[in-house]
């Protein structure tokens, strides 16, 4: 079949028109007393409302020996209040056409709901009831504890979960980030109703509380309806978050997680990174995007497109109040695991040795700038950005200044943050796959430390 000649000049890409400006959505922040605040981003034509209620807490506050406490406590919030049972809460949320979603991160617990605009008031009442008046019924505690234990067990068969487990254990040792966010089989089995109740009172019921509202609502009405409820929720400011414990030092370390039957190898390569509030975080994110944050990143073009070692690979600085991990993750063909690690290390060294060209950096910054509006198309997307400000105590105009902050990053900045925040000389390398095939490939990097999950539930 012949194709007709083009009616346009196809030999060069079209010249773009002039860009239309984009501004991050306006929002107002209202102090409600009792160290509670309402952040409201109004979008009058949305027809929908999204709420995020952000409570102070999160797995970083789990006491030693009680990992998983924050996560289990949060999961119990919607399992019973003074006036409603677990069933009644679920039915009420679903009758609103919405959902009640409770998530625990390292630094916060977030209760989220999204409903049609006409139901916002009722949805908000339910959200505040669940956050302010949980009763932790004993039978629901037992049920969810069992469910969590089974979930921990299920993950022992998932290569990516094993890799993440060994990676955080290797990076952070027995400090809080070295323990799993949802706990270990041992720690969860020991959690009792009283632990949950106490954690709730001391931590989740304390200040500050942030309610983020995005969408179609009347701001004055919203302020009135949440003022009393939110202020009643908080009593005092909680103890400050414990200072992050020092990371485990060391040179290059190799961990083999033996899965003799594996048909592929899960790789994690990295080290301790920097806290979200670190002044270098934006520059480090640009660097990570250039290295492994998009399809045209160095790692993807090298390991996927040049070598065909993998289907996907990415790099990321984890955003936590404490120093989160810098992680490179991929699933690679087992017989190329050693070469894949060598290529990864080479890319890290190259970033430290020479600044990227202006063109490569420009491409990366334009990508991050361009996708920014795309990430706030939905109300949930707007809310997520506001949550990031709230959880990490970023300046309120953080997202207004973000484009300029990206623009300001230069090639020499990239080399500087690469030298400060990438450490190929103290990489932790985790490979989940058949030990026999992996050992000879990874021994050249360091003598492997082996974890056999079939014999040991947790890495040493």
């Amino acid at each position, binding site marked *: 079949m012949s194709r007709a000649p083009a009616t346009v000049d196809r*030999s060069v890409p079209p010249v773009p028109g002039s860009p239309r400006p984009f501004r991050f959505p306006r929002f107002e922040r209202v102090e409600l007393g009792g160290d509670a605040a309402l952040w409201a981003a109004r979008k009058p034509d949305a027809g929908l409302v999204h709420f995020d209620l952000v409570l102070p807490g999160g797995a970083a506050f789990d006491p030693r020996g009680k990992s998983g406490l924050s996560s289990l406590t949060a999961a119990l919030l919607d399992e019973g209040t003074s006036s409603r049972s677990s069933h009644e809460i679920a039915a009420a949320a679903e009758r609103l056409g919405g959902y009640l979603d409770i998530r625990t991160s390292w630094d916060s617990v977030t209760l989220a709901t999204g409903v*049609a605009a006409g139901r916002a008031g009722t949805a908000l009442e339910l959200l505040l009831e669940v956050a302010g008046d949980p009763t932790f019924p004993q039978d629901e505690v037992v049920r969810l504890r069992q469910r969590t234990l089974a*979930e921990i067990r299920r993950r022992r068969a*998932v290569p990516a979960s094993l890799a993440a487990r060994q990676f955080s254990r290797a990076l952070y040792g027995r400090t809080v980030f070295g323990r799993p966010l949802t706990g270990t089989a041992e720690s969860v089995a020991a959690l009792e109703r009283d632990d949950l109740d106490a954690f709730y009172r001391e931590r989740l019921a304390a200040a500050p509380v942030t309610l983020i509202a995005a969408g179609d609502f009347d701001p004055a009405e919203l302020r009135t309806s949440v003022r009393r409820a939110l202020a009643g929720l908080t009593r005092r400011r909680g103890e400050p978050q414990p200072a992050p414990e020092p990371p485990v030092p060391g040179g290059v370390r190799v961990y083999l997680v033996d899965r003799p039957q594996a048909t592929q190898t899960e790789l994690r390569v990295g080290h301790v990174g920097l806290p979200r509030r670190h002044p270098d975080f934006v520059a480090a994110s640009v660097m990570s995007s250039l290295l492994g944050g998009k399809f045209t990143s160095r790692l993807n073009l090298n390991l996927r497109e040049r070598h065909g070692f993998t289907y996907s690979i990415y790099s990321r600085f984890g955003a936590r109040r404490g120093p989160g991990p810098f992680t490179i993750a991929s699933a690679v063909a087992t017989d190329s695991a050693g070469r894949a690690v060598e290529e990864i290390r080479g890319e890290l060294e190259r970033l430290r040795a020479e600044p990227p060209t202006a063109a490569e950096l420009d491409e990366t910054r334009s990508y991050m700038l*361009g996708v920014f509006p795309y990430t706030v*198309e939905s109300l949930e997307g707007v809310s997520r950005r506001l949550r990031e400000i709230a959880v990490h105590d970023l300046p309120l105009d953080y997202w207004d200044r973000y484009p300029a902050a990206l623009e300001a990053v230069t090639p020499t900045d990239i080399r500087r943050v690469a030298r400060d925040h990438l450490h190929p000389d103290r990489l932790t390398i985790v490979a989940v796959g058949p030990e026999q095939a992996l050992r000879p490939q990874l021994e050249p990097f360091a003598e492997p430390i082996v974890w056999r999950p079939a014999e040991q539930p947790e890495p040493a």
Partner: protein
Amino acid sequence: MIDLPRPNHPLELRTLDNGLRVVLHPDRSLPLVAVNLWYHVGSKNEPAERSGLAHLFEHMLFQGSQHVGTNDHFRYVQQVGGVANGSTSFDRTNYYETLPSHCLELGLWLESDRMGFLLPAMTAEKLETQREVVMNERRQRVDNQPYGRAFERLHELVYGDSHPYGRPIIGYMDHIEAATLEEMETFFRSYYLPNNAVLTLAGDFDVDAAFAAVERYFGGIERGPRVERGRAPLEPIDGERRDVLEDHVELARVYMGYRAPGVVADGWRTADLFAAAWAHGKSSPLYRDLAHDRQLVQDVVAWVLPTEIAATFVVVATARPGVDIERVEAALAEHLDRAATEPLAGVELERARLRFETSYLDRLQTLEHRAETLSRMTTYHDEPERIDSEIDRYRGLTADHLVEFAAGSLRPEQRSLLRVVPRGEAG
């Protein structure tokens, strides 16, 4: 009780002389535009011994065309701040970008170049690399995942290996290995035609100017031969089909699969609402009984895979440790039997419908999803306006429709049942 706003998307459907259908949906609230191209071809169009060809071919479309260099597709898109991807299913393959709106023409240039000028750039070397990538994709998603083989096996049971829905979209490993460049070229010439595609633009543009640009970029691509919509005949199901897979898993899991009406028929929405009413959310009958009250399962979910010749209704439940998988199967069967005789309470149906409607509107917040929905409605129904009337179609469904669906499509002898159990426990 129903107080949700009815969606009302401004849109136009126009057709080029070469048969390309173009849907234009302007929305100028953000400086973004979504470009979404559906080709009405998927794994069901593959030769039986070449499963995975359509998907492997999708990978080749990101490897450059006559005027676009090997890795330049993503480069062009990402350097202006856009995102791009593609996906392959049984019936269709889609390619899409969301771009800053002043770069709309870039999207048109890229998509038209690979529609009209792909073959000069397709080489054996690129095929070899993508073959490796796809084999790793298969390992990552299927072979090296707990329960990874389950859907492949369930589809084999539900449709039999003589039907294209009985073969995996990603392909069997030996089929991926065997695919040749000539087969890729034939596939392209047969299906990647303007008269077998729908192009949707959604976002910040002037409709006439955007359509004129589409004409400039796509108008010169020649119409191809008419694509026959062969419907591979479904072999009748003459009784329950069962299998057990031993896998490296900790918890046993049961999969039940049934055939439901295909997406072109209205009947599949009944199946869809049935799944939502019975198994979505903590207060649904299946979750409440099996997961909460009796604690037999970790989770239970049901959904409909919306395919064209027939859709697949699936129920999946993971047993709690120590719970015999047979008890889980019996409990599921009990509910499905009841569903075939007892209408759900009005409040249960209302809950499911509201949840459906809210999440439908919730998803339509993004241009990418709106464009995808418009392409789908146009490919299957030639009627993009269905993006707004879809909710009405669900509102017309009653509890009796759900009973009728269960009685007609979810009978025990129509079931395919797959157990995935820990190694050594197949019994």
